[in-house]
């Protein structure tokens, strides 16, 4: 960091996820403008917040997750993960949205392992930063 800077661009670097969803069973796409949220991950699947109309139990959904590092001006390190997943649980969150649990049907295991590893690293680096400030 040059001596004359109070802020560093990397301090404002944040991660975002762009998620697109297509229901293979009903051949319908979830509107891109809909707020989709990636909540939870596990070894064999994940939990997404989706509109209730996105699917039903047993439906197959084709998902693309693009992980981006916002505010990064150079060498952007986007990561894309495509998979097909089966809806194994749906829990109502609000009037129009559900927490949809998906079990992987077709996916690249290595890509998913990398994604999980990166999520754990993000959590660890946040833990370390909090400790550094509060210790």
């Amino acid at each position: 960091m040059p001596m004359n800077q109070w802020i560093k661009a990397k301090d404002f670097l944040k991660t975002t996820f762009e998620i697109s969803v297509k229901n293979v069973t009903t051949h319908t796409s979830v509107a891109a403008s809909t707020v989709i949220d990636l909540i939870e991950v596990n070894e064999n699947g994940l939990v997404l917040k989706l509109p209730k109309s996105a699917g039903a139990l047993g439906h197959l959904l084709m998902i693309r997750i693009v992980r981006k590092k916002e505010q990064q001006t150079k060498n952007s390190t986007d990561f894309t993960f495509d998979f097909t997943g089966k809806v194994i649980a749906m829990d109502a969150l609000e009037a129009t949205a559900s927490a949809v649990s998906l079990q992987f049907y077709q996916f690249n295991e290595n890509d998913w392992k990398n994604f999980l590893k990166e999520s754990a690293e993000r959590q660890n680096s946040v833990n370390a930063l909090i400790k550094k400030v509060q210790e």
Partner: protein
Amino acid sequence: MGELTKGEQKLIPLLKSARFLIVDPTSSRKSLRSLMSDFSVKPDQIEVVENVPDAMHVIEGRTPNVFFVEYTIGSQACFDMIRIQSERLEPGSLRAVFLITTQDSNSMVTSAATENVDAIIVKPFSFGMLKDRFCEILFQKLAPTPYVQALDKGRLLLKEEQFDEALAVFRQARTLDPKPSLALALEAETFQARKDHEEALKCYEEALKHNPSHFRSLLGSFDSYLALGKNDEAYVSARTLAQHHTIPAKRIPDMIRVSINTQHFEDLVGFYQTAGDLSSMDESIASHLGAGLVICGLHFLKRSNKDSAIDAFRKAEVASKQNPRILMRILQALVSAGLEAEMKSFMSRVPEEIRNSPDVQMAEIELLKKTGQNLRALEQSLRLIQQGIKVEKLYEIAITVSIELKRKDSLIEDLIFKAGNAFPDKKPYYESLHVKSTPPT
């Protein structure tokens, strides 16, 4: 969701009487409810709300011990709720705060850490990760080490303003850890609360011997030096802090101020350049940066470095996104310096509503007068007066320019009459302008 280890099971009885609040406008509640269920927390111990007013209602009533909050609710609202939770909980009772977010920027994390957030759960999380973090924090809270216990006791005494007792506890705590920087920093904060900054600085110095990049001690010594008016020393502390840590967003205005106080104007230019690379910046920081760059420009003007001044003003304009207050300060600076061409160029860039505001038009009139364009200054002044704009200085300029242009006495007296009506308490002053300028017979 899963079985608990023997160690994790130890938390169950400790959480039996705890109150939980989940503020979740989006999506995490299902996972959090499962987590609570694993620890045998009963449904009536948990409140789930979706918005700030409902959350405030709960916090002010059945103040939760364990608080999960989604950052999407807004950073200020999150931090306000955390503060109120802390104030309302009985001293010594369990208190834990978990912030849930997709955002993981160092700036956000540092700000949250300074606002007493215990843990940040980064989305997407795995249930195992959520449980591990939950257990780690809760164990720290429910079974603290003797060092942490002593620090908590001291914090409580400090909060109750029992300074001597707090100091004794923090001094005792020093002996419980081989690197007691936090105990020393809290001791320093006790001295700060007593406004004894010299003693506070001694403690911070000691803390920094154990850990030269200790966040709390660097920030604390910065504050104490500032309180003592030792800007150069404050600047050095802040520089060390910035070298090792991310400056919390709410402290950035202080850094800008110390750069100005110590005449490190190049800091503001560097700040501006970095800020330019960012797609978004907190509005209050942008506004402080803009104000700082105006001061920077004024400094350059004082040193007759016109080009650097104009450059700084231009940057201030961009950084503050043409904040009207900043634009007015720039305009006043250009007027005071008599930089007519620069002012015209500046005026061509400012939005129409600002260009047509009485303040800006007044600044233009002052510049016309300053540059000897009395007739134009008079025309514009009379136009504004006719529009019903009431500004003391406007009448003063209209009267003095009228006198200088040797307008008819009746017209000048009419202006003085109008000025006196608009500002009755200034009437004698307006009258004196005409008397003074009347040549002796």
